[in-house]
């Protein structure tokens, strides 16, 4: 690994209470995308940083990893998915500063989402948030068995993402994390939605056990829709985010009416099983 890349990784994860510097992140992206050098050392450096006791260092390391997963070459997330251990921050707590108490729960949830993101890549052998969308997309053209497996994986990842939603954004570091989460949420939800559309199209031709599983997935999807609307509401508060009004409104309208839709739809599909 080049010295510039290691310097950039160390510079992006200092204890300065600000988001990782854009030039350091750009240098890391350049290292991953522009060269064929191993990313193992880079991942090791960032992994070591998550062992720090300071919430700032840990948070910035997680954000750097997430940034490289989203913007970097697929080989980085591929390497993370192949590692034997992921981020073990389920009991992280920074007691040294007051802000540590408020940031630590979010760091725990955020690290769990990154673990799920890596695990999803391992299970599906691809980053579904970067997969082809649309009528001829990956989720629309899957067969029934693969679709059921894929939807379960997406469901778990999406749940972890929604759980990592911060209730309020109080500093630049959590803002940087939220922006990456927002980017992932849009793409993941589109894949989830397209999978559900494919599932509903295939429902009447499935076996009974598959239908039961499909119905459970469908009901779970409805529940996650409500949480996704709340996630978008948090995003709307941020002035720097200009969300397409149609999409948000559509989510809101759908969420407000989905009670009727979900009841009728789920009842109709359930009656089909009897």
């Amino acid at each position, binding site marked *: 690994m080049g010295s510039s890349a290691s310097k950039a990784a160390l510079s992006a994860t200092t204890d300065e209470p600000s988001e990782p510097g854009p030039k350091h*992140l750009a240098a890391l992206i350049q290292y991953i995308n522009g060269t064929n050098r191993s990313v193992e050392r880079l991942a090791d450096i960032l992994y070591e940083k998550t062992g720090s006791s300071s919430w700032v260092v840990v948070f910035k390391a997680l954000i750097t990893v997430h940034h490289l997963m989203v913007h970097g070459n697929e080989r980085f997330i591929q390497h993370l998915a192949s590692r034997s251990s*992921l981020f*073990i*921050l*389920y*009991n992280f707590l920074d007691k040294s500063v007051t802000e540590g108490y408020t940031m630590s729960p979010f760091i*725990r949830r955020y*690290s*769990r989402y990154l*673990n799920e993101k890596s*695990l999803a890549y*391992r*299970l599906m*052998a691809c980053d579904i948030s970067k997969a082809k*969308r*649309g009528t001829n997309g990956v989720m629309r053209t899957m*067969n*029934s*068995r*693969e679709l059921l*497996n*894929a939807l*379960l994986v997406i469901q*778990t990842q999406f749940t972890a993402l929604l759980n990592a939603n911060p209730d309020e954004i109080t500093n630049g570091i959590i*803002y*940087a994390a939220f*922006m*990456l989460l927002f*980017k992932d949420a*849009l*793409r993941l939800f*589109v894949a989830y*939605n*397209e999978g559900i*559309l494919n599932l*509903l*199209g295939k429902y*009447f*031709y*499935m*076996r*009974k056990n598959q239908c039961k599983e499909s119905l459970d997935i469908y009901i779970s999807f409805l529940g996650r829709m409500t949480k996704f609307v709340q996630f978008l509401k948090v995003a709307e508060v941020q002035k*720097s*985010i*200009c*969300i*397409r009004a149609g*999409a948000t409104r*559509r989510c809101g309208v*759908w969420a407000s009416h*989905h009670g*009727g*839709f979900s009841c*009728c*739809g789920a*009842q*109709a599909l359930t*009656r*089909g*099983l009897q």
Partner: protein
Amino acid sequence: MGEEQLCSASGERWALLGSAGQNRLSARQMASRWPAMGASMRRRSLQNQGQLEESEALQPALGHPDTSSGALDSLCRQFQRRLPLRAVSLNLRAGPSWKPLETPQPGQQGLQAAARSAKNALGAVSQRIQESCQSGTKWLVETQVKARRRKRGSQKGSGPPARSPSHRSTRLSVAAPARSSLDPRERVNRRLSTKMGPHAHPRRRSRREAAFRSPYSSAEPLCSPSESDSDLEPVGAGIQHLQKLSQELDEAIIAEESGDMTVSLIHD
């Protein structure tokens, strides 16, 4: 449950996705058989016309006690027009001696061939329905409306309502779509072996006419249209809603990637 345990549990829950192949009949291959079946039936009926004219001796006289053999002839003629059967030697003695259907004779092989082709054609139609389902669920509502209209029309008319493959597939069940609909035909053929009286001919004829109008016709509707309408309409509307939502979010993602949206990881 700790975060790590959750992660490990999630990792053990699923195995790697494997490839699952799904055999499907070629839609074009099966669809091509459906128009061919009707043409083959018409050709066979024309070929048998010559045989019918030679064997036709008595005019059918319904209700005449002395022309039971003539009535049988008329029945055979009508069946031969519709089914590719060869001429059957009539037994004009004490009573009709019909050979059992369980042991098909060479004369009835044509019927089985026609039934087989109808069964294959059913698969073609169900395949087409499956393809149309993939584009959306508009047909869910449309077919139910058609079934309702058909039932209303049949209730006003005389014949039994015809059952279409789309109507069958909209039924909220997990039954395989390409099941054979030989029951109406088998029912009709078995009726041939039962006691045939001159008074039963008009009713049987009307039933047969209804059956032969379409190979999928049946006397019983599959389900209550009103109940299925109320079930499927919100599902169809919701699916259309989801499709529009998917399109809008896709546009939002494209705009974000192209830089039109004022989103940046680290704001300036």
